[in-house]
């Protein structure tokens, strides 16, 4: 090509590229508006009206701040908000103690079996919160709890009661400690050991070093993990629904659901409370992002450190036993409780002999579970929703991730921001927002599988994009540029270079999305109908119906299903998706 023709062709090419870029960004923005902005806007409008979308149909009347202000002054809301803050605050404190202890044990001590402890510290991320809560209610309900029964056999005059604020805090704390652990363990690992050695030379004792140098230095990581665990606890529905109901401890999430279940349903009050929850969450997410992006004390970059390891002497067996106890509390006891409850005809256990009496055990609860057509349908529905979410959510996330990270398309900043927004919206709030956005529309999506899938896609978009972007960013830009030089176009390059290289990441991200979707409870609550019943909602129904046997059986089925899927995801991503699985709670 001569210089002249090049000059002639270039502007036209460039012009076409720009208009195509706009078209593409525009399409993505429209899609994101449809998925995120529109429902949230409807939620805000819903909070400002006093109409009932089910009765009055689609349309907003009587817009005024009055409704929202009334809600702000409602003592019930205050009570729920206070409960939420106390439960999450206490839970976070406990999570920090557990998470920090284990990260220090794993990174900085010579405790035996450290790999085992590291794995144990992450396990709770994979336990569905609802199942954990169900299991613990079987273990430690004040009257019939298995632990209490056993304590009575031994003759100790003490009873656990998990249906209290203390119980709620304890369960929150032990199941959300991994968030603190993840952050602090990597901060400890990346810390220059010379910083502690200098303190040692300066004459400080090991304990003083821990509190004057080590912990202050990883303070950003501690705060970050703290905020994240607080955020997740705040948005969770399953645990407070199971543990808070008997003792009448409403938190924001359970209160919102209760509002929509009254008759007539108070949808606009629910929207207002949901907005309060969203504002609190948004503020915390903002704080967390600030801490994460803020000045880090980890100064020397890209250098591998051999962290100084403290010789604990005989105490190292104490730290190991702490990990074993944690494993027992988080996994072993709940699993045993579910197994006993699922296979026993009656949960009442008279004596030790009765516990091991095989005649007391049968498959009756499983039979009854699978005899219920609703249960079978819920499993299929869940799989269907999961599949739709994974495929479409994965494709959308890839499109967004590629556009944001690998092109200079116009408007990609806005795309990035909007697609990250759902981080600050708890699942339950998404559910209420989607309810407001679609319930009034005649012949619309409400009542179909698709509304669930769309809500899930929106809710988990940030996690999916993050998981995908990691593998996208690993593909060096020059690999693509080389393909362009060779004469391939943009789409051809994506098809022949980017997709094949990013495939493990894309598959892992889709699997992650599938897992997140099938265990999601918060947003499903407002969007399911009897035709589109999903597993998590039905499990809660069984629990609230009081049938412990079937609830446990169903819990086991779900846990097993999840375990298999997480195993597949782990295999596909070689650990890459692990941390994200739990992120959405």
């Amino acid at each position, binding site marked *: 090509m001569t210089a002249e023709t090049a000059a002639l062709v270039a502007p036209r090419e460039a012009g076409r590229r720009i208009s195509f870029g706009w078209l593409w960004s525009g399409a993505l923005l429209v899609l994101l508006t449809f998925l995120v902005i529109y429902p949230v806007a409807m939620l805000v409008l819903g909070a400002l009206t006093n109409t009932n979308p089910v009765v009055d149909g689609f349309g907003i009347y009587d817009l005024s701040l009055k409704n929202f202000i009334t809600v702000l002054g409602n003592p019930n809301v205050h009570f729920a908000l206070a409960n939420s803050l106390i439960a999450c605050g206490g839970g976070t404190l406990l999570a920090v103690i557990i998470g920090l202890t284990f990260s220090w044990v794993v990174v900085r001590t010579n405790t035996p079996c450290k790999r085992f402890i590291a794995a144990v510290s992450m396990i709770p991320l994979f336990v569905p919160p609802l199942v954990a809560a169900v299991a613990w209610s079987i273990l430690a309900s004040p009257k019939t709890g298995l632990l209490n029964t056993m304590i009575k056999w031994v003759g100790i005059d003490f009873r656990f009661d998990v249906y209290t604020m203390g119980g709620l805090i304890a369960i929150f704390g032990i199941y959300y400690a991994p968030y603190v652990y993840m952050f602090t363990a990597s901060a400890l690992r990346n810390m220059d050991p010379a910083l502690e050695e200098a303190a*040692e030379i300066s004459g400080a004792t090991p304990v003083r070093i821990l509190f004057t140098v080590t912990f202050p230095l990883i303070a950003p990581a501690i705060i970050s993990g703290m905020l994240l665990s607080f955020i997740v606890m705040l948005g969770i529905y399953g645990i407070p629904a199971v543990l808070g109901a008997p003792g009448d401890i409403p938190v924001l999430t359970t209160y919102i659901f209760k509002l929509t279940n009254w008759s007539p349903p108070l949808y606009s009050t629910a929207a207002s409370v949901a907005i309060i929850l969203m504002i609190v969450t948004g503020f915390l997410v903002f704080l967390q992002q600030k801490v994460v992006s803020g000045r880090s004390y980890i100064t020397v970059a890209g250098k591998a450190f051999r962290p100084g390891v403290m010789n604990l002497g005989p105490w190292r067996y104490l730290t190991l036993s702490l990990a074993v106890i944690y494993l027992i509390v988080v996994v072993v006891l709940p699993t045993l409780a579910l197994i006993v409850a699922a296979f026993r005809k009656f949960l009442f256990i008279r004596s030790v002999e009765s516990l091991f009496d095989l005649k007391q055990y049968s498959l009756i609860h499983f039979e009854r579970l699978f005899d219920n057509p609703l249960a079978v349908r819920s499993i299929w529905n869940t799989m269907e929703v999961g599949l739709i979410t994974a495929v479409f959510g994965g494709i959308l996330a890839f499109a967004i991730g590629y556009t944001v990270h690998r092109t200079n398309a116009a408007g990609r900043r806005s795309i990035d921001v909007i697609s990250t927004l759902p981080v600050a919206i708890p699942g339950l709030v998404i559910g209420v927002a989607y309810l407001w956005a679609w319930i009034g529309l005649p012949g619309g999506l409400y009542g179909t599988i698709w509304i669930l899938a769309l809500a899930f896609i929106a809710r988990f978009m940030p996690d999916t994009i993050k998981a995908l972007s990691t593998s996208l960013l690993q593909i060096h830009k020059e690999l693509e540029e080389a393909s362009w030089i060779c004469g391939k176009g943009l789409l051809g390059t994506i098809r022949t270079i980017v997709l094949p290289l990013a495939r493990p990441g894309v598959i892992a991200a889709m699997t992650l999305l599938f897992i997140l979707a099938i265990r999601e409870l918060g947003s499903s609550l407002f969007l399911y109908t009897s035709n589109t019943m999903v597993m998590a909602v039905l499990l809660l129904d069984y629990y609230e119906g009081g049938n412990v046997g079937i609830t446990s059986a169903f819990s086991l089925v779900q846990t097993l299903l999840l375990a298999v899927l997480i195993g597949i995801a782990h295999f596909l991503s070689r650990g890459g998706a692990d941390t994200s699985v739990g992120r959405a709670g």
Partner: protein
Amino acid sequence: MSAELIVSHLRKQFAVGRPAVDDVSFRVAAGEIVVLLGPSGCGKTTTLRCIAGLEQPTAGTISIGGDEVAAPERGVHVPPRLRNIGMVFQSYAVWPHMTVRQNVNYPLRHRKVPRDEAERKVDRVLELVGLSEYAERPVTQLSGGQMQRVALARALVYEPRILLLDEPLSNLDAKLRLRLRDELRRIIKEAKVTALYVTHDQAEAVVLGDRIGVMENGKLMQMSAPVELYNKPENLFVANFTGVSNLIKGEISAPGAVRLSTGETLRITAPRGKTGDAVLVAIRPENIQLRPNGEGADTNSFPARVIEGHFHGTQTTYALETLGHRIEAIELGTVPRFSAHDTIRVVIPPDHSWVFPQ
């Protein structure tokens, strides 16, 4: 407060491989600066960390000011915090969550020094390192050189018995390194502290050290004053490491004479070995004298041919062919005297050539 350091038969064996430190013994007199010099992985940092107490030696003893601080055979291991030593790290290791004053004051907090006395001490040491105006700044606002001064002040503030420095300048840029290098010696001498300094940079070692110990493969090859190290290398490694680039093969033909394979005889003052030994004659490129052809013939004067010359601005290096070898010579001056293919004469100085067994 400075104290004598005695290291004897120190050995450190990590889990795998050869020992990192292998039978190292030396003594640092009170107030002396000794530099451990060697390529990376030679065991110099491990030696230093054993003295600090951050590593436990496998065998040998270390004593500071007469107190035995490490003697694994007898189960003696005094923890670092009780050794009363100061240490400056390669990565500075100043605590980013504290101000300059808080950093420097930290060791005094653990020594129960009264508050006003501590304040005085901090002020004095900050003045010594030239950071008086920066006392209240957060350390994260300082440059690398300033951070290293903070680290130095922190190590000196409690008047430790010994100051250990682990490549303190290697994270700084070249210009700053030169400036701080000269200043470091002044500060250490002014503080009158015994110092052990680890580096891989010869220039640093020569400027800073009263004596230099060269290490290789965990062994201490030679420890002597800089002038002696450069003019009386005890072995081939030290000779090579300090910049000897010319090695000529030969055989001792008589005391003070080495016969080369080409037939010529080199006169060497104070040779090692006995007649008949196969040897290598080591000659520093700076010590070879170049003469135009035909100029007077002294001892060890041989004809040579210039292969090539490289002009470096203030000096010129020549590759020469002589005595059946390719030899490197350096001549100072901004005007190169010879060019390629010239035939010249070289004079190998008998006083500054050394003989090592082949």
